[in-house]
């Protein structure tokens, strides 16, 4: 019974992974791709070229910088939403449904929408009273951060809300007995209990942003403006616009190293045999 899933995974993930590692050592371009098995073996030259003569280092900086920024910015917004929807009030169910909509919208829809909002004569400049470009030049970095934040914060909200729901009722009683005000209770009693779920959300959100291809691709198009040339888009362009296949795959292998550390943290945080996140009690 295990066989179908196992074989499929092997075929389309493990085998390509091995092929990727091999291709990254080949001199592969549009001329040699047809007979890719026989292409020249050039060892680590692609990696050397990627570091020395390509935008790889720049792209890593952009990717890491914007991912960290977005993930951190999601925390206060998500926490505020979780805390504000915890108390009962009329219409709470509706509010909770609405808050998750940006997160469930497909990234290509979010990208297309904000592309129009940010066009030079568009509504963003009209509402903000600014003018000039948002989808090119230095401001494009902030456009990417903003849109990714708009679409991503509900994940923190979701995990923090789940954490709040599992809070012990005695916590509230103890705080009330001590005569703590709402801020003291929030700051010293409630929020510290959410450290687990919020850290998990941070890691997941960081991984999501580092690997995010569709949103920057649709929002800015290719060739990407240099200020938002994130690693997945650079890798894609190198393969399917410049036809530098070996170089492109070498870049993608480097991106695997980027996600390895947060991934290891994530794997430690999820307890495999009970499926409960350690932090969410």
């Amino acid at each position: 019974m295990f066989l179908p899933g196992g074989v499929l995974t092997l075929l389309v993930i493990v085998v390509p992974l091995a092929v990727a590692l091999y291709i990254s050592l080949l001199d592969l371009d549009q001329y040699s791709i047809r007979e890719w098995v026989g292409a020249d073996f050039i060892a680590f030259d692609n990696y050397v070229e990627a570091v020395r003569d390509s935008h790889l280092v720049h792209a890593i900086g952009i990717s890491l910088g914007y991912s960290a920024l977005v993930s951190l910015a999601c925390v206060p917004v998500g926490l505020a939403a979780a805390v504000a929807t915890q108390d009962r009030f009329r219409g709470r169910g509706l509010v909770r449904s609405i808050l998750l909509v940006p997160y469930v919208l497909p990234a290509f829809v979010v990208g297309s929408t904000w592309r129009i909002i940010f066009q030079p004569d568009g509504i963003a400049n009209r509402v903000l009273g600014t003018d000039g470009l948002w989808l090119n030049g230095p401001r494009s970095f902030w456009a990417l951060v903003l849109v990714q934040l708009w679409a991503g914060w509900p994940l923190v909200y979701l995990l923090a809300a789940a954490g709040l729901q599992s809070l012990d009722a005695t916590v509230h009683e103890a705080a009330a007995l001590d005569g703590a005000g709402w801020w003291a209770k929030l700051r010293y009693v409630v929020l510290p209990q959410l450290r687990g779920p919020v850290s998990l959300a941070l890691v997941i959100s960081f991984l999501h942003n580092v690997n995010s291809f569709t949103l920057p691709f649709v929002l800015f198009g290719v060739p990407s403006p240099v200020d938002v040339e994130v690693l997945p888009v650079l890798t894609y362009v190198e393969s399917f616009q410049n036809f530098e296949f070996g170089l492109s795959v070498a870049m993608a292998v480097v991106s695997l190293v980027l996600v390895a550390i947060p991934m290891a943290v994530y794997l430690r945080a999820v307890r495999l045999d009970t499926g409960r996140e350690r932090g969410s009690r």
Partner: protein
Amino acid sequence: MRRSEEVARLLPGPLRAVVLTVLLLVVLGPLAYMFLASVSSDLAVARGALWPDGFHIDNYARIWSTTNLGRGLVNSVLIAGAVAVVSAFVALLSAYVLVRYAFRGRVAVLRGLLALQSIPGTLLLLPVFVLFASAATALGVTIIGTRWAVLITYLTFALPFSTWVMVTYLRELPPELDEAARVDGASPWRVLTRVIAPLSWPGLVVSGVFAFLLGWNDVLFASVLTNPDSRTAAVELQIFGASQEGGALPVYGQLMAAALVCAVPVVALYLVFQRYLVAGLTTGGVR
């Protein structure tokens, strides 16, 4: 009851109202604009007008001739639908084995299910492309450009997550259930289809919906592995959007209408299965 609710309060009422108003404005603002723009004339959107200059509902009629969105939606429904059904079913099988049988490497497989979700798609794109091309040459069939190419690809990306969701569901079911059935002489297959599957349908729904969304939302693989006949709605919309730059007046009103049409099935799925999906999301998925 009333008192304990009073004690559990986190925020004073007015502050809560302020926080929620700001959040709802931030969330609903762009969504409202999306709708307004979709019923505006192309010129009004291009000028950055907030209110539509009339009610141009005909945008929704014109997109079907401006783009190939109709065919794209059919392709998306077929592909994502097949991914959903197959991966929910296969995930049930794999998860049952992972939960009920002890074997060497079980924990490694569980860990792999989570790790595989954070492998960047861009790393696998070119190898998958090259392998499909080589396999096609060897077997004498066409793979790239057909719906099968993306279907197979999505299936494998969906399976790790679907299996993980099913694992979290199945281990909540008491083992006594299968034991009782097995004592009555039922085969493992019968236990699975007659006892386990009916009890774990919320898990099947979550696995299926997430697999569907993966297929519906992907642009990366579909942009490389499909041709004009097998293109999905996501790629049609991306191409439509990218072709608006330069040249004559961009048809922004129609673009927004098309984007909304692509979003509606997803939001509808979410609203219908909200309760299960939220539970599924908190079990820890990266995507």
